[in-house]
């Protein structure tokens, strides 16, 4: 007798649950996204072709040392960079995804030759002397801007 009553109560609860679920309305889905998906960042791409200028020194005596990006000239001067790339002997192209705007960049090369070779090639201070190429570039949305740093003497 008790069991029958329990079964009836269970059936009532199940039916009530089903009715509750059926009555639920799905959250309207906005076509094309939304729904908590993070917004895509608005960026453009800065591509730096980091050529090491040729000289009488061998190719393994002058190496890439640094590429950094800053928002303005003062930040560049003080070393407050937005981005700094890992540079390699074997890598020529370096890319940065940045918000649209004007940026300052610097590229540095270093002389590692022995003796007075570095001084003769106008690297200040001789061995481990560095030369810098500095410039500005405007990054535009969804576009890739390509620069080649120019080193003087």
């Amino acid at each position, binding site marked *: 007798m008790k069991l029958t009553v329990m079964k009836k109560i269970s059936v009532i609860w199940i039916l009530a649950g089903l009715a509750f679920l059926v009555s639920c309305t799905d959250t309207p889905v906005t076509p094309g996204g939304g729904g908590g998906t993070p917004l895509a960042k608005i960026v453009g791409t800065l591509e730096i072709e980091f050529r090491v200028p040729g000289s009488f020194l061998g190719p393994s005596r002058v190496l890439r040392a640094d590429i*950094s990006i800053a928002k303005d000239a003062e930040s560049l001067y003080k070393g407050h960079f937005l981005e700094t790339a890992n540079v*390699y002997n074997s890598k020529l192209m370096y890319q940065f995804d940045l918000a649209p705007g004007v940026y300052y960049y610097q590229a540095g090369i270093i002389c590692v030759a022995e003796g007075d070779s570095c001084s003769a090639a106008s690297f200040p201070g001789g061995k*481990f002397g560095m030369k810098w190429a500095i410039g500005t570039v405007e990054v535009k949305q969804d576009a890739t801007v390509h620069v080649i740093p120019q080193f003087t003497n």
Partner: protein
Amino acid sequence: MFLVTLAIGFLASCETVIDINSTNQDVPIVYCVLNSADSIQYVRIQKTYLTDQAALNNPPDQDSMLFSGQIVVTMERWSAGKVIETYNFTATNEIPKDSGFFPYQKNILYKAKIKVVANQIYRLYIYLGSKEKVLYAETSSLGRLNVIDPIPLQQRKISLYDGNNYTCRWDQVVNAGVYQVAVRLKYKETIDGVTKIKYLDWPQQFASPGSDVDYLSIDISGVRFMHILQDNLKSGNGLVREVIGVDFQIVSGSLEMKYYIESTSPSEGALMEKPVYGNINNGIGLFCSIARIDVKDLLLSSVTIDSMAYGQFTKNLGFLDHTLDRDSTNNL
């Protein structure tokens, strides 16, 4: 009645205590890793032990892990089928053993001055007087390890932050079966006016030799680096940390090392109990070789240091920014 009496007598005579341990065989355990980056090589010799008591509660006696009697350790370098050099090892206790469950007061090793020559065969012989036994093992030394990136150049700073990974590259090494790169972060830590230099070692996953590739490489994740700092360094009031720099350790191991690592790694398939690889004849253990290069005292880029100071994962760890400040207005 007679049969019942007989059965009772028979059952009463049974022993209920069973000795599950057989007599200890004193199996020799030998480990020797020839390191081409070192001029001194070491051999460790111990033996298996058995105890009737609960092994987890009672560490073995020091002497039950070491062989008594005469022990002679020699090594030969072979090239083109001939013995080129023979080395005799002498006992030493100059390297202390870490404290722990096993006894550590007497850490006897055998050492010899050996500069490992690349691409040679090395043979290890050990005579154990107490067992009148000779152990034997053989390994090939590795070729030269040439690291392409990083190069030891402080001006070329390392950037490791969210969205910026570092690629470590090296040439394939002759006879190598496995490679590993480890990054060591060096920093100063000041608590209550006391400053200490500290290290955080971050080993990368193992890499295997590739075929038809000019060089091997591994990517060190910048965002993972920040998580490693978050997971391994404690935060605290008044704690100040200053980044010094990073070292890279690139290690290549012989095929024996590769087999040993594979045999001791966690099982993934149905075979849960894997036999541990060993190449010591008449014993257990490993004789293998490694080549190692350390690229030390590299500097982190200012963006990396600022990310450590103000980034979302590490901002509570007390790192100073690249100007040695904690200016919160400079938050990234």
